[in-house]
Structure formats: C-alpha cells, structure tokens
C-alpha cells in the first residue's frame, strides 16, 4: 500500500514506489497530467484530421472543382482560338473559316463557352457570330447589320441576359 509521500508539498498525494518517477513525483498528479496531455494531443490530432477531410470535401464538392472545370474550358477555348486565328487569318471566306476544326471544337464546348466567346468578341472582334448562334440558339443581329453593329448586338444581348455580368466588368 502506498503511503503519504513526505516529499509532496501539498500532502494530498500518495507516492508510488513502483512507478519510480523520481523523488518528487506524485503518482496521481503525474497520471492526470499525462491524461490531459493525451486528451490534448488527441484533440489536436482529431482537429487536424477534420481540417484535412474538410479540405478534401471542399475540393471535391465545393469551390475547387468548378474553378478547375472553368479553367479547363478556358484553356481549350484559348488553344482553339489561337489555332483558328493562326490558320485562317489570310482566308477570304467566312464559310470556310467557320468550318475550321478549331471553330467547330469551340462550338462543341457548348454553353460554358458563351461568356468566353462574348469576351473574345468584345476584346478582339472577329467572326464569332456563327459560333454564338450555334451555341445559344439565338441571333440578335439584324439582317442588315454591318460588322461593328453585329458585335454590339451580341454584347448587348449578353448584358441584357446577364445583368450582373457586364462584359466590361466581370468578363474583361
């Protein structure tokens, strides 16, 4: 049976010779401290695991995935715009230009490409009217419009249908 430890200044603790923690160690104090440390380490470990899991969930289901998908669409778009411009810049037939594989690939992206096309049309006007019509199913350009009027008609169409996403703001 452990007796009262004469070296324990509080005189509330019993000395355990079997534990052998040193002449000033109080067994239950040490056990409680160890228990607190264990709980604290466990809490930190649990929090770290929770934070890690949260980031994974966020990445998969939250903000990260749409961003990477949008970035992927934009990358494909930019690559095909560059190729289309490079390979058709000296052509004199719009019908031939809009049949180019890169132009068709851009149409094939579908609706996610609409804001990119509008921005490209606004910043670097070119013959994107057929692509926009193919993707949106609409044609806001009057039959008698000239090139600048056609560009303006599509930009206005976008701003009319996307009040919070003005071409000169969010898109540019």
């Amino acid at each position, binding site marked *: 049976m452990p007796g009262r430890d004469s070296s324990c200044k509080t005189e509330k603790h019993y000395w355990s010779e079997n534990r052998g923690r040193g002449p000033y160690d109080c067994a239950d104090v040490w056990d409680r401290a160890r228990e607190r440390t264990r709980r604290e380490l466990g809490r930190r470990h649990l929090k770290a695991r929770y934070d890690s899991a949260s980031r994974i969930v966020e990445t998969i289901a939250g903000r990260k995935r749409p961003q990477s998908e949008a970035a992927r669409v934009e990358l494909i778009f930019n690559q095909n715009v560059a190729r289309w411009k490079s390979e058709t810049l000296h052509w*004199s037939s719009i019908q031939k230009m809009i049949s180019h594989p890169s132009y068709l690939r851009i149409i094939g992206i579908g609706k996610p490409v609409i804001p990119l096309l509008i921005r490209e049309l606004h910043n670097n006007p070119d013959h994107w009217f057929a692509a926009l019509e193919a993707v949106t199913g609409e044609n806001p350009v009057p039959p008698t419009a000239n090139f600048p009027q056609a560009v303006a008609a599509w930009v206005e169409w976008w701003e009319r249908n996307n009040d919070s996403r003005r071409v000169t703001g969010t898109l540019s």
Partner: protein
Amino acid sequence: MTRDELQGLFPKLADSNFSIESAMTPQYNCIAFAVGDESQWWEHGARLCYWPPGMTEGGTLDSWIRVFERHGYDLLSINSTTDN
C-alpha cells in the same frame, strides 16, 4: 500581322518590295478591298456579307472574274495564280 508572317503565307512577297499599309481587320476581305469597299465583307451566300445583286454564283474563279469585271477590271491572258 508582321512582315515575316506575311512572307510565310505568301512566299513570293519575299522577292518584292512591299510595305504594310494597315492592320488586318475582320470587317472586309481582299475582294472587297480590291473593289474599294472597306465597309463590308464580300462573299456569296454568307450571312452579313455582301455579294453583287444578280450574281447567283460565288466561291469560284469564274464568279470572282465576273465581279471584278463589273468593277472595272479586265481579264488578261497572263496565266499566273496565287493561292488566296
């Protein structure tokens, strides 16, 4: 478009003394420019494009010859062609 890019597209330009007079534009094409119209793209059957009234054919050498003849050009007997 730079001189190098132009010479790459049209190699025969390398032997000539040419200069770039204006930036490229999608508003009109070479046919329109040749007949003095810088306001619209000339092409048969394409939307938002102009093609002379009464000309029912486009996209062929014969149709372009007829368009140019309407605008004061004459066909010569020199047999020389360049793409585009």
